[in-house]
């Protein structure tokens, strides 16, 4: 459940952003330190932990044999889910998922699916009957803002390390045997989520929880590389404020630069 920022916080941040300042001395478009580690759970087929500043998210990949969808008989399935556990923040409450808990996995789903980083056509076990379902499950461990960007880094990282389990003779997965076969991943696509947040006339990136809550709008882009071109795969604007076409154009100029910059930072982990 989001809490409402006080007018004092909103007005202070608005004034500071206007002067290009932030409480932690970062530039308006500067990300906090990013760290990625792997093997959060040895029961998962792939897993990663991402830290952006104090925000921390773990992502696990599970694979299971399943039936293909009728409109994609020759492809494996992808399912992205997740939850905002009360473990990660006093703002998260147990019970039926709130909007943020519904939106997060849906945004990651679109960014990953539309980038085609997973070669789903190579995940067919028996055409038309049996395919692998790739489950990407996202759990924040500590929420200090910008969860979506962090979750997408986690999903991409975990996919890159994921393995396909062996199959038993009866067609079920043998999770006991050590999986060796790598999940078919297209190299060089590197889907990332890049979000912009707006307060007053200022646009900032990678907000802390306090900053994010004060902001009046967010726009999240899923970006990847396809045939050496930058491609936007997904986008969603949220909250009440609006974006002018000039602001949209400015973000379009920033996107490829930010994408390269983030990937440069992430290279040593991927």
């Amino acid at each position, binding site marked *: 459940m989001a809490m409402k920022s006080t007018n004092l916080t909103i007005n202070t941040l608005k004034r500071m952003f206007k002067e290009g300042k932030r409480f932690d001395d970062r530039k308006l478009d500067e990300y906090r330190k990013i760290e990625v580690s792997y093997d959060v759970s040895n029961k998962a087929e792939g897993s990663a932990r991402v830290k952006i500043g104090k925000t921390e998210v773990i992502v696990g990949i599970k694979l299971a044999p399943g039936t293909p969808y009728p409109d994609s008989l020759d492809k494996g399935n992808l399912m992205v889910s997740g939850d905002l556990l009360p473990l990660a923040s006093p703002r998260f409450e147990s019970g039926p998922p709130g*909007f943020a808990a*519904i*939106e997060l996995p*849906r945004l990651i789903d*679109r960014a990953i699916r*539309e980038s085609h980083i997973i070669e789903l056509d190579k995940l067919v076990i028996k055409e038309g009957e049996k395919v692998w379902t790739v489950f990407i499950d996202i759990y924040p461990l500590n929420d200090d803002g910008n969860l979506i960007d962090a979750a997408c880094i986690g999903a991409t990282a975990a996919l890159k390390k994921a393995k396909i389990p062996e199959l038993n003779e009866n067609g079920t997965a043998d999770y006991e045997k050590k999986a060796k076969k790598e999940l078919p991943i297209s190299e060089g696509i590197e889907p990332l989520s890049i979000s912009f947040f707006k307060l007053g006339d200022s646009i900032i990136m990678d907000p802390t929880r306090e900053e994010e809550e004060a902001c009046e709008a967010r*726009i999240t*882009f899923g*970006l990847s590389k*396809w045939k050496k*071109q*930058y*491609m*936007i*795969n*997904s*986008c*969603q*604007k*949220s*909250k*009440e*404020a*609006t*974006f*002018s*076409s*000039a602001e*949209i*154009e400015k973000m*379009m*100029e920033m*996107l*490829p630069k930010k994408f390269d910059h983030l990937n440069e930072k992430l290279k040593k982990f991927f």
Partner: protein
Amino acid sequence: MAIKRTDGRSLTELRPMIAKVGVIPNADGSAIFSFGDTVAIAAVYGPKQLHPQHMQDPATGILRCTYDLLSFSVHDRKKPGPSRRSQEISKVTEWALSPALDLQGFPNQVVDVQIYVIQADAGTRTAGINAASMALAHAGLPMKDLICSVACGKLDKDIVVDLNKDEEDFKDGEGATDFPLAKFATSDEFTLMQLDGKIQPERVKEVIEAATEACKEIYEVQKKALKEVVKH
């Protein structure tokens, strides 16, 4: 060479639009809007006292939107009741409409907007937003502007306006990109942006321009329908 659209439209041509206001007598405001075979109906109830009380805002009234597909609006019957998809669209619809509304005169109250799709052929959320925007105006609520909405897109390399279902499923070349947008009718402020597919950042400008032109046409249709109801 530009792509040939299955229904023979030019790249920037909208499907035929039909708009009618005042279609639900019980509602404080209502409208129906269609883009070709996509038909959405919207009703506005309120402002009225908001329950549960903890959701009330003493500074302003709030807008609450519900969007869903009727069970028989699609080929494979949709299970009745909200899905994650419909909850997401309800929320983005709320965000698309609320910047145009000024509910500060209605503290602690709510305006409920109900949007249902009767027949779906892509562009259901945008048709729903157009209908809801008219219904809000019909309800006589204080508005800064009407909201106009259209799904633009890219088929392989061509920017197109108002995709139908066949086009949404287009698979050749760079495939189909679905890019629903909403904006203030008379200014350059965008209130809805969603996207699914593959589009180069530098081409987004063309989409914005195409949407702006399309929204001018939608605005005329909305205005005409609103004026008709005043005449009678």
